[in-house]
């Protein structure tokens, strides 16, 4: 059961809303938790146990961290001044140990279930290369839905308790809901405890305004997912599966179509998730902010899968770049390389770790690692060439954020992203390289028949109109025009016409039913 499935939209979600509203406020979190676990079970069955164990584990470790802090703080207060430093050190040491154990348990489960076969296969490859027998067997483990997402939430919770930015939650139910709230289970956003736990537990009643606004956003998401992303599915699959038979321009089209599909799929589901949250009175952090208007790769990652980028920033990049050894490296390099290039060395080391993890987070395959390194390369390149670029632009009197140069930067970034997505989607790194090679060397024009890969002219028409609508909405949002507010203030006939048109567009032009392969939310697979 995924968010766009009829059984979810017409049965599960309305029933959950009804039960939630009928439950007395102080028990509403139980209704939400029950619905969330039912949702998880409907997809992953018995693997629900992993989520439950993960929740128990962070509950226990969180309380443990808190009790260490409380006891140590009491001891520090009672101790003489000279002893305090030693006690503080002991507290830090102990808490670090507990945090490490808690995180290891979370990441260990993820590593075992998601990456064991990847690492095993590569170790076996080395052994085979050395003429030895394979040592690591292949495991047939099932992956619980959303494990990559809820594990990140679990780690952020423990780290925040360790840092003292939040206190450990005594309520197991509240923590369970924070970990397993059904709208965010499949694809995030990756929330922090401080962002959602209270609102989820509060059980605010569903208000008419929130219901209509949430439904609006869900509808827009459904439109992106079902009319655009799912309609592109056959076209994209055909090109990426049979890339050897395609000409260069067809591969180029496939690359653009896949990038569009992924964006519409992921951001569409996120719109639905945000809409559901809004209905329950839970404001989750946004995951997308029109990423294809980015002027650089760094900016792109502050607009695309924002919560993942923020997680890596807060729990890997900052801790690493502020760690003792890297701080020392920065000071040493600053002396030798100056104020621009000096700090870049340590920053680049931390960035490397971030992008290595980012690539691996997306999947256990070399193509994902390549994807991470690809983005790392362009970010580092931009950092290194920044002084030179600035000088050239100043000399030519070009303003980087205005006019044609701005458009050039946007298109350049989009181009780099699209090529990255080609490798991301290709069936392995070898296939990705082969497709890229063909795309940049084979310019023979395909015939119309060669382009009709599972879609006809009507599909193309629908896609052009639908993408045009999303683009128009994005441009208006980019100009800070409050579209939803304007729509809410519009006269009823106009407003309702927009709603009816959107609903009918999803029903009539949505790619579902006989003749279409159901497409699960694409990021749920990561």
């Amino acid at each position, binding site marked *: 059961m995924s968010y766009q499935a*009829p059984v979810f939209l017409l049965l599960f979600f309305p029933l959950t809303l009804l039960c939630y509203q009928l439950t007395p406020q102080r028990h509403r979190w139980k209704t939400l938790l029950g619905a969330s676990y039912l949702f998880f079970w409907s997809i992953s069955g018995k693997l629900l146990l992993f989520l439950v164990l993960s929740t128990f584990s962070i509950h226990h470790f969180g309380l443990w961290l808190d009790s260490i802090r409380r006891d140590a703080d009491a001891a520090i207060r009672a101790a003489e001044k000279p002893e305090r430093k030693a006690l503080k050190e002991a507290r830090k040491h102990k808490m670090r140990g507990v945090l490490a154990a808690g995180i290891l348990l979370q990441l260990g489960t993820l590593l075992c279930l998601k990456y064991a076969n990847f690492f095993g296969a590569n170790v076996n490859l080395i052994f085979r290369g050395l003429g030895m027998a394979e040592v690591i067997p292949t495991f047939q483990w099932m992956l619980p839905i959303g494990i990559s997402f809820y594990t990140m939430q679990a780690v952020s919770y423990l780290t925040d308790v360790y840092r003292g930015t939040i206190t450990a939650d005594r309520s197991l139910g509240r923590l369970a809901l924070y970990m397993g709230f059904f709208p965010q289970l499949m694809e995030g956003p990756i929330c922090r405890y401080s962002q959602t736990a209270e609102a989820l537990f509060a059980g605010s009643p569903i208000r008419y305004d929130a219901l209509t606004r949430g439904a609006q956003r869900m509808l827009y998401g459904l439109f992106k997912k079902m009319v655009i992303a799912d309609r592109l599915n056959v076209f994209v699959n055909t090109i990426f599966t049979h890339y050897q038979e395609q000409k260069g321009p067809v591969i180029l089209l496939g690359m653009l179509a896949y990038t569009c599909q992924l964006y519409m799929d992921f951001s569409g589901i996120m719109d639905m998730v945000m809409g559901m949250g809004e209905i329950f009175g839970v404001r989750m952090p946004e995951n997308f902010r029109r990423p294809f208007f980015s002027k650089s790769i760094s900016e792109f990652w502050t607009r695309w899968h924002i919560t993942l980028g923020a997680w890596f920033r807060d729990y890997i990049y900052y801790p690493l770049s502020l760690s003792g050894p890297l701080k020392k490296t920065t000071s040493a390099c600053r002396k030798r390389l100056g104020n621009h290039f000096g700090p870049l060395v340590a920053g680049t080391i931390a960035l490397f770790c971030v992008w290595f993890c980012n690539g691996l987070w997306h999947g256990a395959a070399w193509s994902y690692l390549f994807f991470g390194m690809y983005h790392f390369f362009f970010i580092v390149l931009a950092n290194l060439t920044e002084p030179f670029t600035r000088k050239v632009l100043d000399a030519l009197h070009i303003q980087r954020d205005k006019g044609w140069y701005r458009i050039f930067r946007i298109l350049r970034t989009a181009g780099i992203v699209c090529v990255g997505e080609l490798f991301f989607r290709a069936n392995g790194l070898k296939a990705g390289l082969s497709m890229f090679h063909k795309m940049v060397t084979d310019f023979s024009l395909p015939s119309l028949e060669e382009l009709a890969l599972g879609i006809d002219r009507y599909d193309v028409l629908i896609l052009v109109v639908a993408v045009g609508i999303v683009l128009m909405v994005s441009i208006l949002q980019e100009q800070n025009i409050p579209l939803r507010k304007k729509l809410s203030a519009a006269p009823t006939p106009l407003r309702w016409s927009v709603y009816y048109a959107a609903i009918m567009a999803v029903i009539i032009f949505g790619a579902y*039913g006989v003749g279409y392969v159901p497409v699960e939310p694409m990021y749920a697979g990561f």
Partner: protein
Amino acid sequence: MEKKKRPLLRSAAFLLIFSLLIAASSWMVMPKSNIKSSGMRNARAFGYLAEQTDTIDFVVIGDSETYSSISPMQLWKDYGYTGYVCGTPGQHMEDTYLSLEKFCETQKPKLVILEANAMFRSSGFQEDVQRVFFREVEKTLPLIEYHDRWKNLSLQDFTGQIQYNWINPLKGFVPTYASKPWKGGHDYMKKTDKARDVEEVNRHYFDKIASLCREKDIRLLVINAPAPVNWNYQKHNAIQRLAKGYGLPYLDMNFSAQEMGIDWDKDSRDGGDHMNVYGAQKVTAFLGKYLSKEYRLPDHREDPAYVSWAQNYKEYEKTIHKGMTQ
């Protein structure tokens, strides 16, 4: 009070207009005829919609094993029975039930023959429930089922009435002439006491089919056509026990393939998955003999009300002959 009422009234008005829109669009996209070009899915299986009401005595329901193995026109020729095969490819049990329900809207069959291969088609309980729900939605709102027809709408879809006027002379049977041998021979039914599990959703629809037949006073016969790729003893045991529980007769023709003279080198179109026309003739002859012995279906060959069936038979014969000689 007035303020509280407003959202309710607005919601009701919104939903009312929405319902009207859905109803109008549903009517618009619904196939206006029972032919393929009008958008009717699996039109072959719906040729009975153009038959005179209450003229068909038996109906065969199930998946692709039905229309590959049983030729109603052969039974017309040999016994004068009127029958129709409503099976469609890859059918799930909910569709099998729905096809029977729809058939009974215009016909009063005396016998329902359920081919039970689809009883083992399942994607697991959760997936099955979702699929069934979607099917129910489709059934309620034709707009959902036929939404993709916007690509082929004609003027008649906006102005015309629904008219089912295509009679299928093959009565749902799909003859295929190619052969691909099954190399496993006749002894693929290895005896065992074990029985395969039948998923809950499929059991439910089996029960619904049995109840519908009981309610409409129709006799129900459970069968399996010879299909060594799909069938085995464990499945046989499961269906036999299920049929027994309902007090239903069960004819598993996988045990009789040798007796009916199936030549696995020539009589299957795809290596033992389905019969071709030669295999179907043997299966139909065997089934005919069984039906004539166990059921008293009327012989309509001399009935002037069934002249069209005699004409259809000529067309059928021509089609089969042409296919066999090409």
